[in-house]
C-alpha cells in the first residue's frame, strides 16, 4: 500500500473543511445574538482555509476533492443547543484531520496544519463555553474522545 503522504492529508483536510462550511450553513440560523457573528466568522475562516488548500493542491498537480452536494448531519439541528453541539463537532472533526497532517508535513505546510489545529481548538472551546460545557477545554485537541 502506498504510504500516506502530506498531500493525502491536505486533501483529507480539504474534505473536512468542505463539510464544516456546510455545517455552519445549517447551524448558523439556529443561533442568536453574538453567536450568529461567531458562526459567520468561523465559516469565513473555514472558507479561507478551503481556498488555500484548493490553490495549494492544484499547484502541486493534485485534483482537490470537491464539496459534496449535501452531508448527513450526525443529529438534527433543531435548536440552539444542537447548533452549538454541531459547531463543537465540526471544529473537533476538522482539528482531528489537521492534526493527522502534522507528522506528514514540514515547513510551511506543517505551519498551515498547526495554525488550523490551534484555530479549531480555540473555536471549539468558545462553542463549549457558549453551550455551558464544563470543562470547556480538552487536554489533547485533535485526539478523538
Amino acid at each position, binding site marked *: 500500500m502506498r504510504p*500516506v503522504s502530506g498531500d493525502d*492529508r491536505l*486533501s*483529507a483536510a480539504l*474534505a*473536512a473543511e468542505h*463539510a464544516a462550511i456546510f*455545517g455552519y450553513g445549517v447551524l448558523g440560523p439556529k443561533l442568536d445574538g453574538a453567536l450568529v457573528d461567531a458562526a459567520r466568522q468561523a465559516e469565513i475562516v473555514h472558507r479561507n482555509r478551503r481556498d488555500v488548500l484548493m490553490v495549494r493542491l492544484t499547484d502541486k498537480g493534485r485534483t482537490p*476533492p*470537491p464539496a*459534496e*452536494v*449535501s*452531508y*448527513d*448531519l*450526525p443529529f438534527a439541528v433543531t435548536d440552539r443547543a444542537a447548533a452549538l453541539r454541531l459547531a463543537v*463537532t*465540526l471544529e*473537533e*472533526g476538522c*482539528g*482531528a*484531520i489537521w*492534526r*493527522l497532517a*502534522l*507528522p*506528514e508535513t514540514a515547513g510551511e505546510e*506543517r*505551519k498551515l*496544519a*498547526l495554525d488550523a*489545529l*490551534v484555530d*479549531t*481548538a*480555540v473555536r*471549539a*472551546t*468558545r462553542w463549549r*463555553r457558549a453551550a455551558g460545557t*464544563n*470543562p*470547556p*477545554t*480538552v*487536554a*489533547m*485537541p*485533535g*485526539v*478523538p474522545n
Partner: protein
Amino acid sequence: MRAVAGGESRRDGGGLSVASRAGMPAAVTLSGVWSARRPRRAVLTGLAGLVATAVVAGCDPFGSAPPPGPHALDPMVTATRALLARYDAAIATFAELAAKVGFVRDDHKAHLAALVAATGKPAPTNPVPAPTTSAPPADPTATVAALAAAEQTAAEEATAACLAAQPAYAALLGSIAACHTTHLEVLK
C-alpha cells in the same frame, strides 16, 4: 474519483463514507469525513507504540535498561513541570481559583504524562526549579494574569517545538500548543 449523483453507492478516493438515498444525490456523512483516516490512525498509533517500545528498549536487542541520555522532548517535560507547579502554587494560595483553573491544571498533567511517555524515560523526580519571576502575585486576579502570561509563553514554545519536531512528536506537540492557546481563551 468524482462524486456520482443519483443515489449510487460509492466510495471516493478520500475514503469518505456515503449514505445513499433513493432518488436523491448521495450525501456524505459528516462522521464519515471525520473518520476518513481512522484505520490509518490505528496503524500510526501502532507504529508510535513500536517507536516508544524501541526507545524504551534503547534499540537494544538484549533489552537492557534505557540509556539515560537526553531526549528531544526533555525541554518540554521540564517546561510542563514548571507550568504545572505554578498552577499548583496558585491553587494552594487561592483556593477559590480551583474552579477557574483546576481543569487547566488537569490539562497540563495530561500533557506531562504524554510527554514523559513519549520520552520513554521514567518520570523525573528532581525538584522543579522555582519560577524566575519576582514576588508571587498578591491576589487572585493578578495570579490569573500571571498564569495567562505563562500560558502565552508555553504556547509559543510548543508551537516552535512542533514546527521543528521530527514527525513522531509533531502531533503531540501540536495538540499541546493548541491546548495552551485554548487556555488563554479561558483565562481572559
